[in-house]
Structures are given as C-alpha cells and as structure tokens.
C-alpha cells in the first residue's frame, strides 16, 4: 500500500530579498495505484511538490508521507523521471537502465536479464550500447522511464517527462505510458503544464494556482475514462470526445480565471 500524502505542506525559499512563499498549505491524498496529474502554470510549485515526495526537497511546514511513512530522503519505494531526462552521459543505455539495480547490489546476470527485458519493452533494441547523446530525445526519455520502471517502485514520480519532446513523439510516449500503467499499475504522481496531457493520462487532475502554489480544484477523470474505455482508443479519438473537451475547457477556465484574478490583484499592489 503506497499512497502519497501531503498534509498542510508549505514551502518557503530563502532568497536575497527575503523569503518567497512557493507553496501554501497544500493537502493532497493520492491513493495506492492512483494516477494523479498536477497541472499548473510555471512557478506554481508543482515540481517542488514532486521533489518533496522524492525526498530531494523538504517542506517548511507540514508533512509529506509515502506509504504512511514520512519522507526523509530518496528511497527504494520511489523512482523519478525528470524532464531533462537526467541520463548519465558517460553510461550506455544498458548501464543507465541498470544503474538503480546495480546500486541495490542486484547480481550482474539478473541485472542483465531485467535490463534487456526493459530494453525490449521500451523499443530500445539495437541501441543498448549507445551513449545517451547518440539517441533522439524520445529515445532518451524511454531510457529514463526504463531506468525508473526496472526498479519496480511502488511510486513513480514524473516531472514533466514529455515537456522536452516534440509534439509527435510526445503523443506516442503518452500512449505508451498509458499502456505501461495498465500493464503494471502503480501510484503515479505526474507533473505537467499541459492540460491535454493531464486529462488524457490521469485518474485525477489537481489544478494549482500561480505562486504561491495552492490547490485550486481537483477534477475526477477516472470514472469517465473507465466508463468510456479511453484506454482502448487512439489518443486523437479520445481528445475528440465531448467528455475530454469538457474536462479540458473546465481546467483551462480554472487556470485563466485564476491568472486574471491574480493579475488584477497585483495591479494596485504594484502602484503602492
């Protein structure tokens, strides 16, 4: 049982001109095996939330817990896929995918078997001895996803994993992620600024406001997705559905409305 729980999480960053409130009292419960996307404008603190779940950052106030235990640092129950891929440039595809297994002391023969299984699963056959710089962006992100998935983590944390990819590659990767998630369900926290991506992938979409980051609304997609069996359809057909368009428009309005309100609130403040 590995849910993620954010309770009263506030994050302040110290800067030269005093402290900046980045995240303001966020409460969020993510159930075991649930796929939750956090969607919001840049600077809303969504990546910081992910980093706190990963154990790379810590809240100023409140608690972050995974599987009921407070997060004190990175742990084997969680793995992260980064936006910039973060593959080690000096390791080959195989060495990158096997990195976590090696760190855990998995014997070489078993490691090789597991790595090759994911090489095949992620469509990387023939590139296993290439260095990351020899691969396209999409391939690099596949390696990064394989590197995290091979560890069979209870929780997968993904920070705008497709943000650096071109539109076509992005769509292919989104479909692949859905298939991977169905084959092997696990708790996923997915950070994105793309509304479409959030609606297409997630059971629940959490919409955040611009700094200070607060949860504005949580929108349940899962029931509709299952009822209409989105996963059996091509992404462009899903995106054409009334239900999808309805969700998308609603989230857009939330993001826009909030922005305009924030802009209006800032104008007199600037003058003062």
């Amino acid at each position, binding site marked *: 049982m590995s849910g993620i729980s954010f309770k009263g999480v506030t994050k302040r960053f110290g800067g030269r001109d005093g402290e900046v409130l980045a995240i303001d009292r966020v409460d969020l419960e993510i159930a075991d095996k649930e796929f939750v996307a956090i969607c919001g404008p840049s600077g809303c603190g969504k990546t910081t939330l992910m980093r706190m779940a990963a154990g*790379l950052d810590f809240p100023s106030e409140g608690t972050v817990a995974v599987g009921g235990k407070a997060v004190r640092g990175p742990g084997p129950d*969680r793995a*992260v896929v980064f936006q910039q891929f973060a593959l080690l440039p000096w390791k080959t595809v195989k060495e990158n995918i096997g*990195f976590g297994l090696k760190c855990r002391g998995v014997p070489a023969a078993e490691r090789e078997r597991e790595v090759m299984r994911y090489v095949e699963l992620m469509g990387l056959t023939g590139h296993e001895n290439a260095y990351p710089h020899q691969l396209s962006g999409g391939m690099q992100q596949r390696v990064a996803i394989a590197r995290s998935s091979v*560890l069979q983590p209870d929780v997968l944390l993904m920070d705008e994993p497709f943000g650096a990819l071109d539109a076509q590659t992005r769509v292919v990767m989104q479909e692949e992620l859905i298939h991977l998630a169905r084959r092997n369900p696990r708790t996923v926290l997915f950070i994105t600024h793309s509304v479409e991506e959030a609606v297409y992938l997630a059971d629940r979409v959490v919409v955040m406001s611009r700094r200070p980051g607060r949860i504005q609304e949580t929108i349940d997609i899962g029931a509709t997705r299952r009822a209409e069996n989105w996963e059996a359809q091509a992404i462009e057909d899903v995106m054409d559905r009334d239900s999808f368009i309805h969700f998308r428009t609603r989230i857009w309005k939330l993001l826009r409305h909030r922005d305009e309100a924030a802009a209006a609130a800032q104008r007199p403040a600037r003058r003062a």
Partner: protein
Amino acid sequence: MAWRLSRRAAIGTATIGASLLAWWLLTAVTGIVGPQRFPSPAETWAALAQLWDPGYAGGRLPQQVYHSLRLVLLSFLAASAIGVPLGMAMGLSRRFEAFINPTFLLLRPIPPLAWIPLAIVWFGLGDGGKIFTICLAAFVPATINAYVGVRNIDPIFLAAARVHGASSAQLVRDVILPGALPLIFTGLRLSLQASWTTLVAAELVGAFFGLGRVLNVAYQDIFPGMILVGMVLVSLAGAATTMALAMVERRAIPWRAPL
C-alpha cells in the same frame, strides 16, 4: 572523418614546410638574417650532428632528451596524483575547501621559479629539487580544474543517481568522477605544459644533464645552431607528450559527443 583528418594533416605539413622554406631563404640564400642573429639550416644540422655524436653539454642527444623527459613525466605524475584528488576533495567538501583555500591563494602568486633557491637549499642541485619545483608549477592547474570540474556537475545528475539508490561512494565513482573528467583532463593538459616550461627554466639554473643544460651551455658558448636544436627538441618532446595525453583522454572519455 578520415578525409578531414588527412586534410588537417596536409595543411599542418604544408605550413611547417613553408616555414622551413622561408627559414632557408632568409638565412642561407639571401642572407637577410645574418648567421650571428639566427642560424642557417646547415649550421643547425651540424649542431644536431654534433649533439648526436660525440655529444654536447655532458651527454649525447638520447641521454639529454631522456633525462628531461623523465623529469617531466615524474613531476607531472606526482603533481597529478596530488593535485587531482586535492581538487576533487575541495569540490566535494566545503569544509575542506575552507581549510585549504587560504593557503592555496597565498602560495599561487609565487612563481614556481622563485622556489628554485629554496629547492636547491633543500634538495641540492640534483633531480629532487627540480621535481619539487616542476611539481609546484604543475599541480596548480590540475587542482583548480579538478575542483571546478566537481563543482560544475549538473545537480540533476546527482539527484537522478540519488533517487535511484546511489550511495555516497557510488555517487563519487559513477557520477562525480566521470562528470569531472573532461575538466580534469583540461587541467592535466595545462599541468603538462607547465611541467615543460618549468623544466627548462629549472635546468637553466643548474643541471648536469638535460635539454635546459644544452640550452644553457650553448648560450655560454654563443652557439646559435645548438640553441635552436635545444629549442626544437623541447618543442618536439612537449608535443609528443601532449599527444600521448590526448590519446589517454580519448580512451578515458569514450562518451564525449564529437564536436
């Protein structure tokens, strides 16, 4: 790739060939540059023959080159063995850096050659003092570049390794060391250069053998041909060691994207 390499080699050869031709024309053919200013090719060749057999300044050519090469390599290896770990440790630990840096800052402005009198007092006129002096010159770039190399590693690599379970030792071995390696090699190249520069200077001050000794004796004998031979030998030996280091670098950093 092969074509580009061969074209580069051809251009390099042509440049050197043209310079040699100009040298011959200026000194031997036209006499624009007189023999008391700069030796002609024939005089230089005679000096080279003399250095080969019977020898000059206490030894024959292979002995003189071997002696200098040995000093440079020993000093360079010692400087790298001290400088690279020191720089990496400074990059890894702020506390260690705070401990070492003030000393480092104060010692750095002292030109390596200013250490020679002290080195002679401590080690005498033998190889010990020269190795000490060359080490002092060579270890500074090795240290600084290893330090900057560690400091400049993209934190995302460290984060990625940590979230996938790397321990501190694995972090150093699998992320920090390979990540710093390109700059470490930049430092080593500069160290090697510094080693050669300092060697010749150290041998000029006092030596029984070596290319610096050849230069010094030739200067006292007012023997321009031999001075030129000594300079060319230093240049060739320096270039050979630099190329050897570049080969080691290519083997050590196979992942580097071709530029």
